[in-house]
């Protein structure tokens, strides 16, 4: 990467996620987190705005249109939307801030997986000729990956227990029992290996150059950010590894320094093992102190929350170098890695 303009996360807010539909519409979910990042920064207008959401999750086309009405987008704003996790909306905003003529950006994402059957909905993302017609569901293909990895049950259980325990300490995550001995859903995965159904939203404010220091006392500077996709077909890649996550981590410069905290977008317990290896995280790195997606998974905002949580450790002074990861596509097909520094 060439000369990069300093861009930092200066504010982050998320809903107190729920495991059920509270009756709040998507715009109503976003409203409080927008208010919170406005309050944190004192800004009401941003030079650029970008969001991430998914029509199939919302059950209707153009789910992002009504969300715009929650923003107070008047006078009209410079705005875009990705049909991806909002972590990629943050990436688009980061790119936009590199131009030099925009200094602040608002990024948000939202999702209510309580409305539908996520396992079935995610099938619709598969190749429509060879995979989707099989009815291959999200948990099943994740289980194929877990099987290819050959992770031990003990290790998976440890990851779940640690994540859920951390989640109970996190006021925004769900309260899930640390120990839950269920049977296999799709062997080798059990119910507790799977991220819970979650409704929620999150917002991040980015600021470039001098604005970062003006808007936060300890901005979380994005020292590197990169993403990579890999082949779609499960049989055409090594499921036990994530080459794209490893590439993204190298491009983002994860290994250039210590990593105190890593927030990983692991929606299944075994994904954490694959990601730790791909990102070459040191043994002393604290993984998912927020509880991670296994404690709260508001789909389409989950990746953005990883960046927000990693940034929060810098903003609040508890860490000086953290890593965030976001994923998309079946079996970690698409991975984004960001390195945040004080």
């Amino acid at each position, binding site marked *: 990467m060439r000369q990069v303009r300093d861009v930092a996360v200066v504010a982050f807010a998320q809903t107190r996620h729920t495991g059920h539909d509270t*009756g709040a519409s998507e715009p109503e979910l976003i409203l409080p987190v927008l208010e919170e990042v406005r309050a944190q920064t004192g800004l*009401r207008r941003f030079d650029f705005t970008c969001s991430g959401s998914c029509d199939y999750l919302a*059950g209707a086309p153009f789910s992002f249109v009504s969300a715009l009405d929650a923003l107070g987008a008047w006078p009209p704003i410079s705005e875009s939307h990705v049909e991806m996790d909002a972590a990629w909306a943050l990436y688009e905003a980061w790119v936009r801030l590199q131009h030099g003529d925009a200094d602040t950006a608002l990024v948000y994402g939202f999702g209510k997986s309580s409305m539908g059957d996520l396992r079935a909905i995610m099938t*619709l993302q598969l190749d429509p000729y060879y995979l989707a017609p099989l009815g291959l569901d999200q948990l099943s293909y994740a289980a194929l990956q877990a099987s290819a990895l050959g992770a031990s049950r003990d290790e998976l259980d440890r990851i779940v227990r640690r994540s859920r325990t951390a989640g109970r300490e996190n006021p925004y995550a769900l309260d899930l029992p640390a120990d839950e001995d269920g049977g296999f859903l799709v062997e080798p995965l059990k119910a507790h290996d799977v991220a819970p159904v979650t409704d929620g939203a999150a917002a991040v404010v980015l600021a470039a150059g001098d604005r970062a220091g003006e808007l936060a006392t300890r901005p979380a500077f994005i020292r590197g950010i990169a993403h990579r996709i890999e082949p779609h077909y499960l049989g055409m890649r090594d499921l036990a590894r994530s080459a794209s996550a490893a590439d993204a981590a190298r491009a983002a410069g994860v290994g250039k320094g210590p990593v105190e905290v890593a927030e990983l977008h692991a929606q299944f317990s075994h994904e954490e093992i694959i990601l730790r290896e791909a990102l070459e995280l040191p043994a002393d790195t604290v993984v998912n102190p927020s509880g991670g997606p296994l404690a709260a998974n508001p789909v389409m905002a989950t990746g953005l929350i990883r960046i927000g949580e990693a940034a929060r450790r810098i903003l609040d002074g508890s860490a000086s170098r953290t890593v965030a990861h976001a994923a998309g596509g079946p079996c970690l097909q698409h991975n984004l890695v960001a390195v945040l520094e004080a």
Partner: protein
Amino acid sequence: MTSEPLVADHVLEFPGGYTRSTGPVIGRFLTELRDGRVVGVKTAGGRVLVPPLEYDPATGEPVTGEWVEVGPAGTVTAWAWVHEPRKEHPLDRPFAWALIRMDGADTALVHAVDAGNPKAMRPGLRVRPRWKTDREGGITDIACFVPEVTMIVSPTRAEYRIRASASLTRFLEGIRDGVFRGGRCAACDKVYVPIRVSCPECGNVIGEEVELPGTGTVTTFAINNLPDPRAPEVPFISAYILLDGADIPMIALVGGVPAHEVRQGMRVRAEWAPAEERTPSMSSVKWFTPTGEPDVEL
């Protein structure tokens, strides 16, 4: 004197069927068919005959001994559609007879194409044999030809459980009770209907609820000539109706007036369904109908 003509059925059928020797060329072809392959033979001039003959039909010269596998796909060069198949036909449902040039062949063979309907047939259609399971060495070892797969039907269904938001619930419950509920943005001093949580202009939370009368003005409209399940008939009017006291129009049906008499600026009022039939849904407002007041200047 007349009598009924004398009529009787008569069948000429050699018991058990004729026994035909195939000769080397046809025999080879049918043997290959039994194995699930289609082969042709080359003429001295280099043409590949399918089905193969012992001679070049153009010259009468013997064919060479060179065999080539063709297909399995072929191209339809001409066809005829059988609307009413006869019992001898290879298929018991409407189908096409077709001339099919197998890939690699220079001539066409005749066979049946199970295409479903005549619209599926066209020159250049790509077809492949549908093989019989138990083959005996005959041209009907190919049960028929079928078009190549060019489309799959992909049933795609996602199920949801939708819960109306608190503000929309409040509005629709108002509709059930025969009132339009809006909200006033204190900062912009604008009244929004339906009531909503925040102001689209300034983003502030809307705190004050207001009740609006069921009367308003048509600001603009479309005359829809395409049917819609939510409208009783075609044409129907979908109109922007600015309720009195509101600052944003709602899109709703206008009825009780011929479509071409609806005007921009026309005064209308809600025509409610009878109270006992009302539910928390917009269908409780049958439509908006003219009040008869003078039009409003827009």
